[in-house]
């Protein structure tokens, strides 16, 4: 009923990532950390306890010698559909799916730090603040004033640069518009990718590059069989890369992609 009364139809923001274009440079990870005030790794942090809202995995086809092929797969919060696995489990409603944008949001101010959402996420895209956030002396001047750093003991994850969404919304209001201009809302990782491998936009708008790319024959989503309805679409012309979307097969590691 509410949706019918709205003048602007609900958006469904999503991304397409062209795996064949990604060279694993990590620019997206750096840009994301700078934009979202993700602190540098604390002394003692490992790759299992560090914070990064987007993580680039290196995979290979399992072959040896000249037949060996590699690819890089950026993995971030997949912004699942309205039944996102992390939303229903949170005991204090610190996670939600915004019906107006489809973005899965995380409220660190309300988070208990129980980490149930992390256990629920099949993409391992949620990160816990195991340490107090700290920046080396002088670096605090580089913090983004539009994004609040998160405290120790709470979970955080990609929110499609929510600070930028707010800025774009404010810009639209200032221009007397109700809808965001797509050019005003581009997440930092999309902007930073030197190869143009990542596209972002409203998947409900068929005119966008993202919506078109999402429906190409070589596009796929991670673990679609789980029914999580993710909004991150990957694209590759290589069969062995597309196989990564399926469940792990430990007994046949040689024949499939490996991390």
């Amino acid at each position: 009923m509410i949706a019918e009364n709205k003048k602007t139809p609900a958006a469904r923001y999503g991304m397409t990532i062209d795996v064949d274009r990604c060279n694993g440079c990590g620019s997206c990870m750096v840009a994301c950390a700078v934009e979202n005030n993700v602190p540098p790794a604390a002394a003692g942090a490992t790759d299992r306890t560090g914070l990064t809202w987007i993580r680039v995995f290196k995979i290979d086809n399992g072959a040896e010698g000249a037949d060996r092929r590699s690819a890089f797969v950026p993995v971030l919060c997949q912004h699942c559909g309205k039944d996102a696995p992390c939303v229903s489990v949170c005991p204090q409603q610190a996670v939600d799916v915004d019906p107006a944008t489809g973005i899965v949001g995380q409220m660190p101010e309300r988070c208990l730090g129980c980490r149930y959402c992390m256990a629920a996420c099949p993409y391992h895209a949620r990160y816990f603040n195991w340490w107090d956030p700290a920046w080396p002396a002088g670096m605090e001047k580089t913090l983004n004033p539009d994004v609040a750093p998160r405290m120790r003991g709470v979970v955080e994850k990609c929110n499609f640069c929510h600070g930028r969404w707010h800025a774009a919304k404010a810009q639209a209001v200032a221009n007397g518009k109700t809808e965001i201009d797509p050019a005003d809302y581009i997440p930092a990782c999309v902007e930073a990718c030197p190869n143009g491998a990542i596209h972002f936009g409203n998947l409900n708008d068929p005119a966008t590059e993202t919506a078109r790319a999402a429906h190409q024959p070589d596009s796929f989503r991670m673990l679609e069989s789980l029914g999580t309805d993710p909004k991150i679409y990957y694209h590759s012309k290589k069969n062995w890369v597309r196989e990564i979307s399926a469940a792990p097969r430990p007994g046949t590691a040689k024949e499939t992609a490996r991390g």
Partner: protein
Amino acid sequence: MANHMFQQIDKEFITRGVRRCSTPRFILWLVPWVALLLFGAYSAGLCLVKGLNQTNMDNRYAFGLWIFVDLTIIALGAGAFFTGFLLYILKFKELKAVINSAVVIGLVCYSGAMAALMVDVGQPLRAWFTFWYPNVHSMLTEVTFCISCYLTVLLIEYLPIVLKNRKLRDVPGFLVFEFELHKLIYVLAGVGTFLSFFHQGSLGGLYGVLRGRPFAFREGIFVWPSTFFLFIISAAAVGPSFLICTTWLVEKITGKRLAKDRVFDLLARISGILLSVYVLAKTIDTLIWINRTSPGLGFTASQYYDWKPFGTWILFAEIVLCGLVPALILLTPRLRARRAWLIPAAALACCGIALNRYVQTVQTLALPTLSFDKFLSYTPSWQEVGTFLGVLAYGVLVYSFSFRYFQIFPEERELKIEVRPQQEEEPVLAGRF
């Protein structure tokens, strides 16, 4: 002089008609447990002050030793609600002999689990948020509400045990209060049973609802996955077994007989019957999961057991070795009448439930879901182990004080003058059930 006075005061608090060890001996027994409790408090303090970076948990292993222990001790503490249910609602009068012990064990298990949970969450001061902003769809909300309420019920149930203390009974107000509280016991038993059924179930549902973790995900009825019901049955089955083990252990440590053989026999029977039901339900559930649920999510069940050390042996150990075998022993009158069979069978049943909770918590998180992710292992840090040992020490201390000063086993006085029947005699069967 002061020492003598202290011993005199100590004696005045001990229940009439029962013998307890001397004050120095009791203090000697307490010393290692107090030391362990202090070590646990230090470990937990480090985690609270410095943060959960003191643990070996990580972004993949979001849960570790503490959640496994919490789930296990809450299942083992189920004897409190289930014995109360059998005694006050179903009128199994024989169980009056162990109900106080069951309440103390329940209180220790639940309060210990709550304490560990408070250390386990990143922002313990925000625990009240769950009551203020409850997400009614979350199993964890149900767990938090039910466990908090049931812990309150347990505290109220524990109060009459305390107020019956020889010295405290001298205060007329306490006596009246205890009498009035006792009138409520049937209501409390009913409320406790209701709450416990729900939180045991929602603890099972905690993992069963995880659609993103096909190893743990189960189909079910309405909003409840099958693990909801399996956890209830398994907790009810293992609660009496744990009561058998603890009563036997206290008998061995104190060198006294505390409950009649017919009580052990009845508890064993109840445990055996429920364990059989659980084994059957678990087998059916596993078959449905292997053949329908997991393949439906794109994961063949056999792949979970390719990641060593989690081979199929774990299924065998959980269902057959620690499920079917103890169930058969507990159901056989001749075997359960002999302590040499009864105690290992009860212990095996407890181990089986612990293994089930381990599989649910640890194995679920160890298995990768993305095809290019790795299988990971986890070893708890000394701070995690220390906190767990602190909870264990706390439990032993509360039980030790309760045993010394309160009437935990009402049959103890009676049994003091009885001659213990020979182990090889005909089994003594309970009068009913």
